[in-house]
């Protein structure tokens, strides 16, 4: 039973379709997870995209139930099975952000910032957003913006969270390491960033070999 604090994120950068006459729909789809370029069939690709969340409603934290429902809406046959298979293959991760799953996930993945940081704005000096000017804007908290902008320079998300925690003025909650708190907040908010295309998770340390 997934924890109510679980979030779902897809792993990899979408490289687009390649024509394949024998494939269903005439195309296969490539996803670069940071170590391997995977070739997905149409239903797998649609389910993987469904794990990104809904770009039309990027406010909700994305979980397995929403992923499966979105995959069904996208026409994926046996959506639950396809999503579970992607989770098993680590092309989609389900993370309980209140547990050590978070540390494991953050240590195994890096974050790519794919859009600019926007704001704060004269009319609201506490508002920060990430997006493409004039096209799309995703509200993001200050701590998450700090992680977002430094993350590309770190080997993995956990290292970025530790470094930001050392200098961030954010107060520490008793009994919860600051870097853990920052990572949990970022991961929760990152589902909106992933939905809008502003962030991509990829495997860190591919030299360590495939997931086991």
């Amino acid at each position, binding site marked *: 039973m997934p924890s109510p604090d679980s979030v779902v994120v897809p792993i990899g*950068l*979408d*490289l*687009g*379709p390649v024509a394949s006459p024998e494939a269903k729909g005439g195309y296969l789809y490539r996803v*670069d997870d940071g170590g391997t370029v995977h070739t997905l069939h149409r239903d797998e690709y649609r389910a993987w*995209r469904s794990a*990104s969340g809904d*770009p*039309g409603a990027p406010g909700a934290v994305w979980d397995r139930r929403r992923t499966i429902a979105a995959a069904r809406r996208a026409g994926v046959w046996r959506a639950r099975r396809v999503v579970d298979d992607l989770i098993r293959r680590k092309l989609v991760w389900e993370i309980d952000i209140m547990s050590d799953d978070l540390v494991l996930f953050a240590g195994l993945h890096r974050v*790519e*910032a*794919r*859009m*600019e*940081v*926007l*704001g*704060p*704005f*004269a009319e609201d*000096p*506490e508002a*920060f957003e990430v*997006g*493409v000017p004039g*096209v*799309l804007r995703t509200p993001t908290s*200050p*701590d998450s*913006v*700090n992680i977002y*902008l*430094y993350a*590309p*320079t*770190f*080997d993995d998300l956990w*290292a970025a969270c530790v*470094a*930001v925690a*050392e*200098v*961030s*003025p954010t107060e520490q909650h008793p009994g919860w390491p600051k870097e853990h708190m920052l990572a949990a907040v970022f991961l929760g908010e990152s589902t909106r960033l992933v*939905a*809008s*295309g*502003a962030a*991509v998770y990829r495997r860190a340390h591919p030299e360590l070999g495939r997931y086991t």
Partner: protein
Amino acid sequence: MRAVYATGFPVGKYNAPGTPTQYRVRLGRDVHALDGVERFLWDAARAVGDPPEQFQDRATVVARHGDAMSRAVGLDLRNDAFFENADGAFERLAGLGLLVEVDVDPGRSDALSELAAAHTFRGLQVHAGPGPADQERVGAPGFPVHELSPAEHRAWTRADAAATLADAAAEAGGLVALLPQLHALMARGLGYLDRVVVQDDPISYVPVTVDVTR
């Protein structure tokens, strides 16, 4: 010829009460604050002409900067004082590493190799579906912004996957061939050059806080 490139990731426009607007740019693990003139100049170096130049030198960048600032304020600012000020801004940005000038003439490959080893290309925006003919759309899911040819799309994905510009150049026919392609992508907001960092380097502060008086 000495070609000019802008480096760094845009980190927003800061409007603190009673202070001039700042534009912040991250390069490696350093975040720099630019004033309006510096930001316009930095943007001018990111842009390309129409049609795009293979390489653009300092005079081209400064002239474009003069055109852009004149358009922005509705006055022709291109006088001696303006260009003197622009030269000063250019030197400040070059001192921070946010503008790099590199010799691209044949036989002067040392400087180019240095640039390639010290920088990496990071892609911006994501795949947004197939475009017309054999093009690929890039932007945000549901919001395609640009259409890339297969060659542009290849450069966008392959250079982004390489650890350094040198690695990217090795599989793209050399840096002199790759740089104009990457510059065209950067001008469309599809990537930036970042400084390769030593993993142990700390970060000195977090630039984004809700305290706008700092």
